[in-house]
């Protein structure tokens, strides 16, 4: 199995392709934000995406984080706290 796409390799790849010192600073700021948000870890995931699976964007553009919050309401449901007598998670009955 091929190795995963490690954050260090990805950072190196981005830094190598940055066309200017300003671009390199953008990459470093982006990486700091990723770490701050807990979105990357130091261990490469062997099941994770491979470097060649991520399309190359073409001309340089600064890296950015996009927030995808559709269906956020569903992710905020907590199935642990409401369970039926058998132990299965259960939403409270909907008010009609």
């Amino acid at each position, binding site marked *: 199995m091929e190795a995963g796409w490690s954050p260090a390799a990805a950072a190196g790849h981005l830094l190598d392709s940055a066309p200017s010192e300003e671009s390199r600073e953008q990459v470093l700021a982006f990486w700091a934000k990723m770490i701050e948000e807990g979105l990357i870890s130091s261990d490469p995931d062997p099941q994770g*995406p491979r470097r060649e699976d991520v399309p190359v964007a073409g001309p340089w553009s600064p890296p950015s984080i996009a927030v995808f919050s*559709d269906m956020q309401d569903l992710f905020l449901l907590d199935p642990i706290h409401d*369970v039926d007598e058998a132990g*299965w998670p259960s939403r409270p009955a909907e008010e009609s």
Partner: protein
Amino acid sequence: MTELLAQTPPEFFAAVRERFDHAAARAGLLESRFQVGDRVVLLRFAGAALRDLLTPALAHLAVPGETEADLTVFLFDTAATGVAPPPPAWASDAFRQRGEVEGFNDGRIRTVFQQGSDVLLMYDRERRAALYWSSDHRRIPYWERSFPLRTVFHWWLEDQPMQPVHAAAVGLAEGGVLIAGLSGSGKSTTALACLDSKLLFAGDDYVLVRTSPTPYVYSLYGTAKLEPENLARFPLLQASPANGDRLDREKALLFVNSFAPRKLSRGFPIRALLVPRVTGGPDTRLAPTTAAEAFLALAPTTLCHLPGAEGAALAKMSALVRQVPVYALEAGTDLAQIPRTILGLLRGQERR
């Protein structure tokens, strides 16, 4: 009565499967077969309650009789059958993101307790079999009826060059477009605007794409969902929502079969991928975009709905955006321009 807890994922799968047999013996076994991609799926229901809820979205894919199936799904609910599954074989803190159950997902078995619908889903890769259990079919939300079993299809096709994706698709028999974007990006409006044109409808929310040998989109669900305030823009659809009495709290759920059955397509080759942008102006036009932007419109939103097999899904979506031309569709308020723009793109490609 003391019941021994099944400890391993295959044991737990077998225990739930056994409860399905009891439920089917009580409520009656009903079978439906559907063409999903290039293969057949057999749905075995214990009683009519879940069948009547979940199969209308797939009705246009029905196949007759005894066709051999590649995937079998066993579906039951406790309210209609009086049969419950065994208690969970995991601790109450075993639920992870998207309802994945820690310790019950491995190379063979996948297990999710689907948040929002309270549905237990399990898949046995070795036997190509899946389980679907709900405590009460009356508590299944409307959106589950619009894309039933999408997670099961995702698991089942993991090792095939096929992937359910969060996208709409419209086109002609000889080729069409995939429309990818977040909820609210104009995807449904674009797809529904095409019903009043020569373009056929293959899906508004989830479709199945094949990435090899050539890009192709298969219809999964003959449904559409639309924000109620947008219904006024579609005179054809105003009497059609299946949940017309609940539009104060739900999107309008539309079964295209019920008002435009001849507009449904089972699929077509993918000629382009469009990323819609709502402009607010009247006119619609195509603008350049990049494969990376198309990938971002398609992949994160798909992965956030479908648990497990992320690496394989990502590779398939990446392969897709590399193979087809991509455009931004700057969608205007004059809806008639939307299908005209897409038809112009398809016909322009034919001429080249």
